[in-house]
């Protein structure tokens, strides 16, 4: 598959002080990213996915890493000196953020901000950095880069701003790019442009990508492997095909089902997950998903299940896997709290199924 792990996170535990005491945002988190590979960390709010990303960057503001290690090319970043971390940031690991408007300093031109990223790590003249900044802006598809380099962030659209942020991240050709919900603030048309750009750049530069998102569509489009998080814990990981097509964890399955898909009829209710995403201040006992799980067992309330290795080099955290009948989840387990009751006129069912949807301008290239 891929080469030796570029990034190896083991048993990471991150805590934050809050007014109501310390909370554990990430618990016992382990995953790897190989050279050139794209790994997506998926989760809802409070799952710890962004905290994981910031931990790798060494940019946790108030939180602290309690235990575990983050090895980048074998070097433990949790033990690295601040000076060493500054060398790594931008040069070897770079990051793209969620909200491009807020991610750029409003008082400097975008050319200045790209050039700054170059000059921090490369011993080049101001003029040279500037010329390379324009080249980078051209590479990320900013129209008229010479002129745009002299623009201020507020003069650009959201999509163009995100291109600038990507140019900054790629300025020193990093081995690992971390993207934290890079398209969430953008329109779906612009999202498609930005994701395509990231894929192209990744292919050109051989960059590994750690993609943080809540959007399964983005995961399907970008990822080689997927790590699913819930309330600070990894609940499932595997290849994108394994996780999205045959999810083994009840949470992953329920989450995938609760996304409106083209196949669901307007006259049926959505298979929703009951309850709310738990607050980190008050995490449930045992399995953290048990209050919302349609397949909860007595044991789930008391004891937390381990991350069990399943056939096919994938993991899932669920007691069901450790039942005597040893089962994987049956593919057809549809039961969840609000069943798919009919809302009336059944004749208006899924006449226009998924197949006909893409008859528009979608060409297979």
């Amino acid at each position: 598959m891929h080469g030796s792990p570029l990034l190896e996170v083991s048993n990471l535990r991150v805590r934050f002080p809050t007014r109501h005491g310390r909370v554990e945002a990430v618990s016992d988190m382990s995953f790897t990213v190989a050279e050139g590979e794209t790994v997506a960390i998926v989760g809802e709010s409070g799952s710890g996915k962004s905290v994981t990303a910031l931990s790798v960057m060494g940019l946790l503001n108030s939180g602290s890493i309690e235990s575990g290690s983050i090895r980048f090319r074998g070097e433990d970043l949790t033990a690295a000196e601040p000076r060493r971390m500054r060398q790594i940031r931008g040069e070897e690991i770079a990051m793209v953020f969620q909200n491009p408007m807020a991610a750029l300093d409003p008082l400097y031109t975008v050319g200045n901000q790209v050039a700054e990223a170059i000059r921090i790590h490369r011993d080049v003249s101001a003029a040279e950095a500037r010329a390379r900044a324009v080249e980078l802006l051209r590479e990320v598809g900013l129209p008229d880069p010479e002129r745009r380099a002299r623009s201020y962030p507020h003069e650009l659209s959201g999509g163009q701003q995100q291109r600038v942020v990507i140019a900054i991240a790629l300025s020193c050709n990093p081995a690992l790019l971390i993207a934290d919900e890079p398209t969430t603030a953008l329109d779906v048309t612009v999202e498609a442009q930005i994701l395509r750009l990231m894929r192209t750049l990744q292919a050109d530069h051989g960059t590994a990508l750690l993609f943080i998102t809540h959007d399964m569509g983005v995961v399907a489009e970008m990822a080689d492997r997927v790590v699913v998080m819930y309330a600070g814990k990894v609940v499932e990981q595997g290849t994108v095909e394994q996780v999205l097509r045959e999810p083994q964890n009840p949470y992953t399955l329920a989450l995938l089902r609760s996304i409106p898909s083209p196949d669901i009829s307007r006259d049926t209710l959505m298979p929703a997950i009951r309850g709310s995403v738990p607050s980190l201040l008050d995490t449930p006992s045992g399995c953290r998903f048990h209050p919302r799980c349609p397949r909860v067992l007595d044991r789930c309330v008391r004891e937390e299940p381990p991350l069990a290795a399943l056939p096919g080099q994938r993991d899932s955290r669920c007691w069901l896997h450790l039942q005597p009948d040893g089962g994987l989840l049956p593919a057809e387990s549809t039961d969840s709290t609000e069943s798919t009751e009919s809302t009336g006129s059944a004749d208006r069912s899924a006449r226009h199924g998924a197949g006909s949807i893409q008859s528009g301008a979608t060409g297979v290239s």
Partner: protein
Amino acid sequence: MSAEPTVETGQETPILEVRDLVKHYPVRRGAFGRGAGVVRAVDGVSFRIPRGRTVGLVGESGSGKSTTARLANRLVEPTSGQVLFDGADLLATRGRELKALRSRMQMVFQDPYGSLNPRMTVFDIVGEPLEVHGVSRGRARTARVTELLETVGLSGRDLYRFPHQFSGGQAQRIGIARALATNPDVIFCDESVSALDVSVQAQILNLLKRLQRELGLSYLFIAHDLNVVRYMADELCVMYMGEIVERGDSDAVFADPRHPYTQLLLAAIPGHDPATAKAKDRAVARGEVPSPSAPPSGCRFHTRCPFAFERCTAEAPRLRTSPATGRAAACHLLDDTSEGGPS
């Protein structure tokens, strides 16, 4: 531009009909502030919401979706156009009469916390519209608020709690209970589920569906997630730069988009199957929405349209309704040759 006639779907008058709705915001342009221009935020929008149905409004940010919703319930005063609510001319209504009509249309906003006053209890939040519209007082009000909370899946125990004590999904339920307080006919859902976690979003969508069935509500439903709109809307209006470029039965539009913009918009929806998502390489629309203060000449979409030809830069296409299907689209490519335009 005249009001575009919409197709009769039945004998009933629609609960809400807007005709040729226009909102222009004045802007000063140029270094010396001369030559005042306008931003055409909404420019000649017409649609109707049949009783008990959902009309979806989609388009990129800045397309005028939210402004259209605010014009239709007169939170924002239109520059021109007509709004017929249950047959009554909303824009000609004043004072008490306007208040009575308004109480029959409510809004549910995007940010569940931001739209609830953090210093008010749930009882005050949900009870406030009752007071404003003089629906009930005293003990009757407590009973009514409790009933509303139960309707949206909360309970009387939540009456005296504050918004921050609820999760995002529950807070949005409070917002819905508030909207229901005055027994509205129409609810405007402006990105009402967009800020919610996926696992919670489905609950709220189900709640909206159940309320529609039980209370006969009509929705104007705005969301940027097109799969959510597809699930909710019976009819669809696609907006681009303040204009409706395509309108029609939701299933039909999703299955067979006519307007090039709708085609690009739908093609941009990410697929959830990894095999096809990677292989298909989503069709990517060129560029981004132009500045609304300087819209392109002719068809406003021509700068991004893969099929644009000369006529598109010169002449704005009109929204034409096909009598056979009831669908409408504004594109020169779709013009009937019998109408006599140059092809």
